[in-house]
């Protein structure tokens, strides 16, 4: 029988140690399918490591991939803090990307100083609006937001396909379902010469800093934590539950929407229906690995991005499927969940 005794205090070392041990366990577990697939495990992991950070190019690629994950990870972390399980970052990302294209590809003709904020603002608004629906359904009708946000992901993706085959289709796109490119003035500038890394990363990092201050230092942050931990007590104390939930939902959706704008305006330049490679879902893993701490989202996103980028390199070299990256990331989520138990409780085996 297993017994859990709540810990009175968990040191930072324990928190970080448990997190790292969990990630280590995830890699160890992922070694099993790798070995079964016939790959030399040690070399495969080494290749992943090199592919993720071995060269300047690899490093910038990892940071480029981390950029949308910072946004979606923060979107999940903020919402989960208030026990609002937003699993719809994938859909909100696309909604944001569509809004970014709508605002940035000619509808507004303005210099970059105006157009870039307009594009980002449009994307944030679109993501927020999309997340308000499940938040309202949860707050007003008690409908589980996990199921509604998941289902909306499919609806949004179909809507995007419809738009890309219809009004948003680029007449110069050679028949491919893709949008017109955004104007040059809407493009987020690159950070490193001749690399794909762009200013979206800085916006993401800034968002994490702001979120950290809001959660830890403001009345609103305290309200969010109170509502998330014990909504009954928060309501009894007169904290406006509905308003707090709607604000958190809108913020979370807006952050996921920014991920879409950042990908369109920073990386791709136009919208396709395969813009996101599961960034919305990976964001959940990022948030959990970060322990829902806004500042920890940054390293967590870089780590998860590194796994994906490194696995691509490894896959090209060794011919082992790059789905191993998805596998490692999924295992990380489960292992971090279990690791969290050791932080909250002293686990005794009787």
């Amino acid at each position, binding site marked *: 029988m297993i017994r859990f005794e709540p810990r009175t205090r968990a040191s930072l070392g324990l928190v970080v140690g448990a997190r790292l041990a969990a990630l280590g366990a995830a890699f160890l577990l992922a070694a099993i399918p790798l070995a079964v697939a016939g790959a030399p495990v040690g070399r495969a992991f080494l290749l992943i490591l090199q592919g993720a950070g071995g060269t300047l190019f690899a490093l910038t690629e990892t940071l480029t991939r981390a950029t949308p994950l910072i946004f979606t990870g923060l979107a999940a972390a903020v919402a989960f803090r208030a026990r609002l399980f937003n699993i719809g970052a994938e859909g909100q990302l696309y909604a944001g990307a569509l809004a970014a294209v709508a605002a940035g590809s000619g509808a507004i003709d303005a210099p970059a100083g105006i157009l870039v904020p307009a594009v980002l603002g449009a994307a944030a608004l679109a993501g927020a609006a999309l997340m308000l629906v499940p938040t309202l359904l949860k707050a007003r009708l008690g409908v589980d937001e996990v199921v509604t946000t998941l289902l909306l992901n499919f609806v949004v993706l179909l809507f995007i396909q419809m738009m890309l085959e219809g009004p948003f289709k680029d007449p110069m796109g050679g028949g491919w379902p893709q949008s017109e490119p955004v104007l040059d003035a809407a493009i987020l500038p690159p950070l490193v010469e001749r690399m794909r890394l762009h200013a979206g990363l800085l916006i993401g990092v800034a968002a994490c800093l702001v979120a950290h201050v809001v959660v830890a230092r*403001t009345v609103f942050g305290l309200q969010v934590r109170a509502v998330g931990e014990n909504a009954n007590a*928060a309501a009894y104390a*007169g904290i406006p539950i509905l308003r707090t939930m709607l604000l958190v939902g809108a913020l979370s959706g807006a952050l996921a929407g920014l991920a879409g704008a950042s990908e369109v305006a920073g990386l791709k330049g136009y919208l396709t229906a395969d813009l996101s490679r599961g960034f919305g879902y990976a964001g959940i893993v990022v948030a959990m690995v970060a322990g829902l701490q806004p500042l920890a989202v940054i390293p967590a996103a870089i780590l998860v991005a590194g796994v994906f980028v490194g696995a691509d390199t490894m896959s090209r070299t060794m011919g082992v499927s790059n789905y191993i990256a998805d596998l490692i990331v999924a295992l990380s989520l489960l292992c971090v969940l279990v690791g969290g138990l050791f932080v909250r409780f002293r686990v005794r085996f009787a």
Partner: protein
Amino acid sequence: MSPSPLVLRIDAVTKRFGALVANDAISLDLRRGEILALLGENGAGKTTLMNILFGHYVADEGTIEVADGDGGLRPLPPGSPGAALAAGVGMVHQHFALAESLTVLENVVLGTRTAWSPSLRLSEARAKLARLMEESGLSVDPGRRVGALTVGERQRVEILKVLYRGARILVLDEPTAVLTPGEAEGLFAVLRRLVSAGLSIVFISHKLGEVTAIADRVAVLRGGRKVADQSVAGASRAELAALMVGREVAPSRRMPRAPGAPLLVLEGVSVPGPGARPGLDAVSFSVREGEIVGVAGVSGNGQGALAALVAGTGPRPRGTATIDGRPLGATPRAVMRAGVGRIPEDRHHEGVVGSLDVAENLVLETLDSPEVHRLGFLRRRVIEERARAAIQAYDIRCPGPEAPIRLLSGGNIQKVILARVLDRDPRLVLANQPTRGLDVGAAGAVHRRLLEARERGTGVLLISEDLDELLSVCDRIGVMVRGRLTAPEPVEGLTLERLGLLMAGSGEERAA
């Protein structure tokens, strides 16, 4: 007459939770046909001991033996309710263990047939249950869903569950807490009948009166130790009380004080109840400045609706409810602005947010005040300073303002809530079951604070199931029965018997 044979022997059982020793080498015997009272304050270790007997917990040290069918004592395998049931031990928990969406019959047969058997044999079970009801005098409709039963009926189902399994030892944990005095009498009659048929009973209680009324023998627990084990016949109540508390308890003294102007006034207030439960039915009464008005009654008679109304968490009522002549609001913020301080019934569920620290919980109700924030940013230093002051003033035992509140004991959490409520100088305090689950020391501190508030001219509305508490601190007491409140009567003319009659619904005179 030789003593009847032993049916249960608990030998030197010790149980620790972290640093807390809940049971310290407790030994206990139970004989056939005997009612043994386990007397002690909240937190004395009574329930822990019985949970070990029943296999919910595993003891760190010590053994338990139970007599088998032939009368020989056999060791009971630890940590298995199934083994305890098989050995003939049945337990009625204070919080009933019933599945509300299932019928009475389904709850009774749950776990009595091996899981892989292809049939429930419900008709057979129904016949056996009918026979048991006949024999024991406990009756309840076997086809009804448990969710639709009253508390008293649910308790009967719990006892029937135990009898259905042919238990030889019945453990009752605070069984009268949810009953009117009249219903408790009925329960005692059933218990005497069961004992004369050969059952042995362990009766957990912290009420002296009922222990002397029902038990043959009493074992007193204090701070996890057994401090007495004696026949009830020779014991005096004062002696038992001293054993239980371990010191002289000075009762809270209520100084005479003339009440002031009416503060909270309800006239013909009606609120629909949640589901099938009663809400409020044309309730009229008032609380004046500097007086404590008590609301007695068995829980579930509308006290929840009354508390929600005054706390601002309930629906908008019909009739008029005013405070200081102005309408009482319908949101927590509105009633707090009107000067109401609220002590919720369930402090863990509604009172505090466990992961927030003591300082944050103290300001939870005043987040919009300029003392707490500047431009939306928390004034952490001011907040912590205030927390330190409250910790000092209210004797809150905790590591400091930054300790997560879930680490505090129930009594200390209640002190945090008291500090939060009283430091705002409320006009009226709503105290809903403020001492439930607290030990005598912590309960005394709560009473002292409420009486001090009364001295300052604050009105107090005290909702409680503990009649002794009401009689000792209130100026006037009304009784809630099925959503109605009798006109509060001055405590000087009230007795336990009179309150009992009113609670049973025989005082039909209505509040003016």
